[in-house]
């Protein structure tokens, strides 16, 4: 069952302790199979097993050497994320595809100057964000500052206020008046349910969709998302929480 395999793969990498608190254990850039790797980072005296830097350095070296297979692998790995992030700024999938292409042009053109101070991924996504913003401006599209940097300015409840007792309730204000109904387990695991989740994600505002895609679909760590999108920790969590809350609501509406 491919579903189970996918879940195993995911949960091994990321959601190590879903039952407790989420502990993100994925190595940065870990999911791209590495070209010849040293395994032990010569820069750390303790000789601990570090994957991040050698893999990155090797990726960059392979790209510089014109290794098409490495490029293809990175494109396959990142394309979906690049598109999602581009669509925060530009209106359509078609324009987002163009932005991604232009991003790669710029990345390759600047590769000689890449010094490895940030991860390759962070660097590429920063270039993408700049490219997308420039493109949006050129098309006369106004990007609300709050799109990424002030999402909390417009409040959005995780659950509709009318499902709780009013503030004026004499004994338990804010308690559930209409608690979430139990979801039928047999339908939760059905393929249609996953399609509902996918549709709910597609229907999200672009900023929420980008964050939930990177975090929960692609399995990025919160630090990776914050760095790539230049977001604060709090705003990243606000967007992620709203996205997950809307998806949960959609699931409840579908199943209950």
């Amino acid at each position: 069952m491919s579903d189970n395999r996918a879940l195993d793969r995911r949960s091994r990498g990321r959601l190590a302790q879903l039952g407790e608190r989420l502990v993100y254990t994925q190595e940065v850039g870990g999911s791209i199979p590495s070209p010849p790797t040293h395994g032990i980072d010569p820069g750390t005296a303790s000789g601990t097993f570090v994957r991040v830097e050698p893999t990155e350095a090797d990726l960059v070296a392979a790209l510089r050497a014109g290794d098409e297979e490495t490029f293809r692998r990175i494109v396959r790995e990142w394309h979906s994320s690049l598109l999602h992030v581009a669509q925060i700024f530009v209106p359509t999938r078609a324009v987002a595809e163009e932005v991604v292409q232009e991003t790669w042009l710029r990345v390759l053109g600047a590769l000689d100057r890449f010094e490895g101070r940030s991860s390759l991924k962070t660097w590429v996504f920063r270039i993408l964000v700049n490219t997308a913003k420039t493109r949006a401006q050129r098309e006369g599209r106004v990007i609300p500052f709050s799109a990424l940097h002030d999402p909390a300015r417009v409040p959005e409840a995780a659950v509709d206020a009318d499902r709780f007792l009013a503030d004026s309730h004499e004994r338990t204000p804010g308690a559930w008046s209409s608690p979430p109904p139990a979801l039928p387990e047999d339908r939760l695991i059905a393929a249609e349910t996953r399609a509902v989740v996918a549709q709910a994600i597609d229907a999200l505002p672009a900023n929420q969709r980008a964050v939930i895609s990177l975090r929960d679909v692609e399995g990025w760590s919160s630090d990776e998302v914050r760095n790539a999108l230049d977001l604060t920790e709090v705003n990243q969590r606000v967007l992620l929480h709203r996205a997950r809350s809307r998806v949960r609501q959609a699931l409840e509406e579908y199943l209950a």
Partner: protein
Amino acid sequence: MIDVEAFSCQELVELVTDYLEGALSTADARRFEEHIGACDGCTEYLEQFKRVIELTGTLTPDDLTPAAESALLDVFRSWTSAQEDQVE
């Protein structure tokens, strides 16, 4: 007995991601867990929230069309041949 510090259900549903990310203070995390321990509605809510994360993690990103891939490979190939021209 009313604990003035306790979260209401309406407050708790706003804190689930903070809780799961380990972003709550120790005191707030304890209040969160105490509330969950005593409230069926919020226990169900938390479970559903975790299921959403789990289900989302099973989705496969499949946005790379063959056309987009070949366009990007063209970008790469013209870059590599430009590099070679420079060397020569």
